[in-house]
């Protein structure tokens, strides 16, 4: 990872390499990060292409598969409820020609104890988890970068007050904040989304988790801006009369891309994991909406009561673990690429 050979550069090329392309080269040399990227991209593409099916089938209950719901390779299962669902929800040609085949593939993954397809719930749950993770990352980047940069640029008393606020919030236990924020924001958000409670709930989770994970970001960005501020090029910009906002957005932000990318990527798996805890405690996404954490929590309960329903826990957990590992690998890879001196990577 560190000091990977410069294969992409021809000998005799004397121009100094741009920092961004140097980081990109280091990132590409990192095999685990590459594997993580490929996994996340492929899984996302599959989940998106399956979206028409998973959106209309994830909540379809089926009496036949509710009784005999083990994964069935090559076994023909009752298709009637699915036919009904496709008729009522999406009367598209998509379902008429691809539906039966897709449905057969789905039955290899088994059904849950209400007869709902595990595959479709997993595929939709993956997207829901990813959306919550990305939403939380966007949220925490926006607040954290602005907070840290403004504190560092303003300096003096404003800086002191802003950073004391961060200290106070650090004193609050993480998950307590999420729960409290969820309680406080629930009403306004549902009103904002005009009663679409399921969508509002997913957004609410992303907002609540994001609103508590910006603290580290703010500290890191403040430190970076404080050191950047003293550099000659900022002084030069100020000397030719650039305003504060211009300096912030045109001169400072491009130099902060590295730390922002690293922390944002590491917020995503954190948020996915937090969401799974909340789902387990009964305050995450609400039934029937799936998320990887929700599915794993449901699976754990099903296995606890009827030992033997292994597929209800294996498939969601496998997807959850692979997703979290992939995201962590990407984050670690980015950190190595942007900051080779850092020492807290998963692997050396």
């Amino acid at each position, binding site marked *: 990872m560190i000091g990977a050979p410069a294969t992409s550069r021809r000998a005799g090329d004397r121009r100094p390499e741009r920092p961004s392309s140097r980081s990109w080269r280091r990132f590409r040399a990192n095999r685990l990060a590459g594997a993580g990227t490929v996994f996340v991209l492929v899984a996302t593409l599959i989940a998106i292409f399956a979206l028409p099916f998973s959106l209309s089938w994830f909540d379809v209950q089926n009496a036949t598969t509710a009784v005999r719901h083990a994964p069935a390779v090559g076994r023909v299962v009752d298709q009637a409820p699915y036919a009904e669902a496709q008729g009522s929800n999406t009367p598209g040609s998509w379902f008429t020609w691809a539906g039966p085949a897709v449905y057969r593939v789905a039955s290899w993954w088994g059904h849950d104890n209400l007869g709902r397809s595990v595959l479709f719930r997993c595929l939709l749950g993956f997207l829901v988890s990813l959306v919550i993770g990305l939403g939380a990352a966007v949220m925490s980047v926006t607040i954290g970068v602005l907070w840290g940069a403004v504190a560092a640029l303003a300096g003096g008393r404003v800086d002191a007050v802003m950073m004391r606020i961060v200290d106070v919030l650090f004193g609050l236990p993480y998950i307590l904040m999420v729960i409290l924020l969820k309680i406080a924001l629930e009403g306004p958000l549902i009103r904002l989304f005009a009663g679409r409670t399921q969508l509002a709930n997913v957004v609410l989770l992303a907002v609540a988790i994001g609103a508590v994970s910006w603290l580290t970001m703010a500290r890191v960005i403040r430190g970076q801006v404080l050191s950047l501020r003293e550099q000659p090029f900022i002084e030069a910009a100020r000397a030719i009369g650039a305003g504060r906002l211009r300096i912030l957005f045109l001169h400072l932000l491009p130099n902060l891309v590295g730390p922002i990318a690293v922390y944002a990527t590491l917020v995503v798996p954190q948020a996915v994991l937090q969401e799974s805890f909340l789902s387990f*405690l009964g305050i995450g996404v609400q039934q029937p909406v799936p998320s990887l954490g929700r599915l*794993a929590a449901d699976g754990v309960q099903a296995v606890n009561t009827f030992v033997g329903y292994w597929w209800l826990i294996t498939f969601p957990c496998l997807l959850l673990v692979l997703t979290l*590992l992939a995201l962590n690998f990407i984050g670690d890879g980015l950190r190595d690429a942007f900051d080779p001196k850092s020492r807290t990577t*998963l692997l050396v």
Partner: protein
Amino acid sequence: MTRRIFNRLVWGLVTLGCIYVITFLMVVSAPGNPFAAAERNMPPEVVRALEARYSMDNQAAYFFQFLAGAVRFDFGPSFQYKDWTCSQIIARALPVSLTLGLVAMLIAVLVGVPVGVLSAVRRNSWFDLTSLGFILIGISLPAFVTGSALLIVFAIYLKVLPIGGWGRISQLVLPALTLSLPFMAYIARLTRVGMLDVLGSDFVRTAVAKGLDRRAVIWRHAFRVAFLPVLSYLGPAAAQAMTGSFVVEKVFNVPGLGIHFVDAALNLDRGLIMSCVLAYSAILILFNIIVDLLYAQVDPRIKEAA
């Protein structure tokens, strides 16, 4: 030194005050009424009497009333557990969470550190790769999955440990182990990285070249340096383990503070929510202060800077 401790404690109290204000605002602005959810169709007089009993009718008065009580560690009645005051609930549940967290940290250090050292010494061996696998699983599997897996194996199939509950040492093993896994994984990986760094340094090479015993070089020379980052991780991690055991408590039915907090939040039990938050925050703040002071003792450079 005394002055520093005093300053930190005062600042901790200020922080606690700010946390109280934030929590109060959030709880008060939360929609819904705890009585409406529990018992429907109550006559309006009863609702009014209940609201007066729990000071729901006047938010500003409640703010100061709770604060005045909290100073004397009297957090008032709980909505949900009618026979208990919040102080009694916390006095019973907090020691449970603290014990669980401390034992979990102990396990995490006792297992994580040797694993990290060994996998650094035998880099790329089968031991290193196996431990890496476990580390990755420990970091990315949620606690309710690992906990349930342990439960199924040790309590249901092997029947060597109880399923849940609290009071006996055997009932502590599985929850503490589950809670320790992510910390164990992180400690092992911190130790491994630190050891790899130190093992390549000059003074270790000199020690080996002098013909010192291999074990002595690893443990007495290299490990002492490599342990420093782990030491600085232990403080926040211990606080996190003691205040973040919600999930584990729920899986193993441990009567800790986490379960009470989640229930309180779901039932909008205002007094209990605020007392739980204050108890948790006080622990976090106290721990941060202790850790900072300890660092100053361990690392002279920090003492000079302060």
